[in-house]
């Protein structure tokens, strides 16, 4: 039997009231974005927004609750753009979306920050029995989104970013699961030499926690070679995009090279307002697992393929309910 665990990759839209309130408090320009040492009014607004979004997840009945990363103005680049040894440059496009973030230019050593740990501490305080899921960019994506002005060498930089992330994870409160988001592995895959270092970098982050670690990929299928290397990473599950991706290529990768004992399935569209019916989600889970001939799973995480901030607030909330409802019962998988 495969246990179905409903979750999300985090990065939720701000509640509409918070969009307005924070836009009034912070402003609209590049230098108005989050710095990591924001004033009391701004902290208070984010605290209220976090409480609301955490309640939405527990009310919906999701099996894992995320902090929702509402402060991450720069999306996955956030852990660097608030770092003291990083300067923010121009506004650059976020993958091929109509979204933009500040280019993090790393000018000095990536020392311990604790910014994300503080968010998770605040979230843990809001939870009772619910299971906390931490979310971070994976080391490859974070290094891919940044500009290195300090380490000089691509491999050294990737290593430094993974050590930095490991240090951050070490300071996290207890968490059940850690999602490492790695869209860059699909969008701008590592070249020769770097591809084999990616697994090492991910393992370095993963080794910093006792929680189950999921490396989640999206916006397409992984290149076969990138996937083969990724399988060397010391993680509990790899996540796949079955919405936007080339499903045949993804299934080929999984069946050809096998995958981890657990799996994450991106089956709800994080970039379209059409809300999936729970039965549809359930059918997609069954279809996908039926098409993995090579193995059965202890746990399948059922999630949206991407972050949720692309959606208006109402639709993002409805998608949470669909995910939770689709995973209420355990799945009988015929061997």
């Amino acid at each position, binding site marked *: 039997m495969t246990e179905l665990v409903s979750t999300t990759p985090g990065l939720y839209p701000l509640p509409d009231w918070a969009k307005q309130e924070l836009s009034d408090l912070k402003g*609209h*320009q590049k230098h*108005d974005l989050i710095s990591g040492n924001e004033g009391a009014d701004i902290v208070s607004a984010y605290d209220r927004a976090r409480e609301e979004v955490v309640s939405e997840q527990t009310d919906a009945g999701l099996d894992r609750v995320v902090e929702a990363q509402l402060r991450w103005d720069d999306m996955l680049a956030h852990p660097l753009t608030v770092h003291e040894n990083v300067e923010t440059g121009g*506004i650059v496009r976020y993958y*091929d979306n109509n979204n933009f973030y500040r280019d993090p230019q790393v000018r000095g050593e990536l020392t311990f920050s604790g910014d994300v740990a503080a968010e998770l501490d605040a979230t843990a305080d809001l939870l009772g029995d619910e299971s906390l899921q931490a979310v971070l960019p994976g080391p490859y994506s974070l290094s891919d989104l940044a500009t290195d002005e300090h380490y000089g060498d691509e491999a050294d930089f990737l290593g430094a970013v993974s050590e930095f992330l490991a240090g951050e994870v070490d300071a996290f409160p207890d968490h059940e699961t850690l999602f490492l988001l790695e869209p860059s592995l699909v969008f701008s895959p590592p070249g020769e030499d770097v591809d084999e270092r990616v697994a090492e970098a991910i393992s370095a982050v993963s080794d910093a926690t006792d929680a189950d670690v999921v490396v989640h990929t999206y916006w397409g299928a992984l290149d076969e070679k990138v996937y083969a290397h990724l399988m060397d990473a010391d993680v509990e599950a790899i996540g796949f995009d079955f919405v936007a991706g080339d499903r045949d290529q993804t299934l080929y990768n999984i069946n050809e090279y096998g995958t981890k004992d657990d799996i994450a399935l991106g089956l709800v569209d994080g970039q379209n*307002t*059409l809300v999936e019916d729970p039965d549809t989600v359930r059918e997609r889970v069954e279809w996908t697992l039926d098409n993995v001939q090579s193995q059965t799973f202890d746990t399948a995480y059922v999630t949206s393929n991407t972050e949720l*901030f*692309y959606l*208006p607030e109402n639709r993002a909330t409805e998608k949470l309910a669909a995910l939770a409802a689709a995973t209420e019962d355990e799945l009988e998988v015929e061997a």
Partner: protein
Amino acid sequence: MSRDAENREQFRPEGHENEHFLLTTVVGSYPKPKWLNRANDLAEDPDSKFTQEHLHEAHDDACRVITREHERSGLDTVVDGEMRREEMVEYFAHRIPGYEFNGPVKVWGHNYFDKPSVVGEVEYDEPWLVDEFEFTSDVASKPVKVPITGPYTLASWSFNEHYDSEADLAYALADLVNEEIEKLVEAGATYIQIDEPALATTPDDHAIVGECLERIVAGISDEVRIGLHVCYGDYSRIYPELNDYPIDEFDVELCNGGYEQIDVFTDPEFEPDLALGVLDVHTTEVETVEEIKENIKQGLKVVPPEKLTVSPDCGVKLLPREVAYQKTENMVKAAREVEAELDAGEIDLDAPVPQAD
């Protein structure tokens, strides 16, 4: 194939002082008078006595002011500065059955956009722009250009819940744009500009935009000038394919990049007329007439003077209003001076811009 671009002569002002004629125009948006922003806020405030009718009147007033401001700067063709539009997709989506709005989504930082969802077949209901075109035409003594957000951008910057693909949605929207242009032409419009900024981010879709344009111009007289504006992208990804677009004029933003990309258009031969951006809309520094003249000459590397239109890189709405005005006025002066130099044979058309060593 490009359309027959002979229709530019109709925009030559009566008594034009030079033999040569470089058509001067703008892309569309213009800074709003501050009082209009205040009026917009009041109209949204449920406690205010300011009604939608009052807002309509405020829009009319703003359109009058900005249309006349355009005329005063000397432009050959004018627009109303898009005073009635807050955002280029929302404005049209509100007028097209099949769309619904669910709330704002993030673009960057705390900048949001009310990204609409297509939840059913898109249809043509009431005209979108005919009333405002008629209003502006009544105010203006110069020909009025009408900017319309293109179907590819309307499709790309929406959530598609209904159509099998984004291309199918874009084609359905293109048919509606065609219907709207027919109505505008009936009302007297002679100059239409299709804005497709989304093409710059996904240039591999140039064939979809081409098919959209075929639908847009179907049955539209050659007398009507059709322009296409695409900004902030890598033009080499859509050139020379755009030579096959059924348009009279292709409007580019190149000033912002210091004309680094101008050579993209020199080989093979550029087929439509070129509407060249000669003002950087992202700097408040006002270009001098001399600087703008040099920018205009960059265009002569691509097309002869009779195929060159002069305009800012993009809409100027983010500039302070007095800066926008001064830039536009300098642009027109520069165009007139280049015309005079062309008349006098002072510009070498084989090498209009001094070559760097």
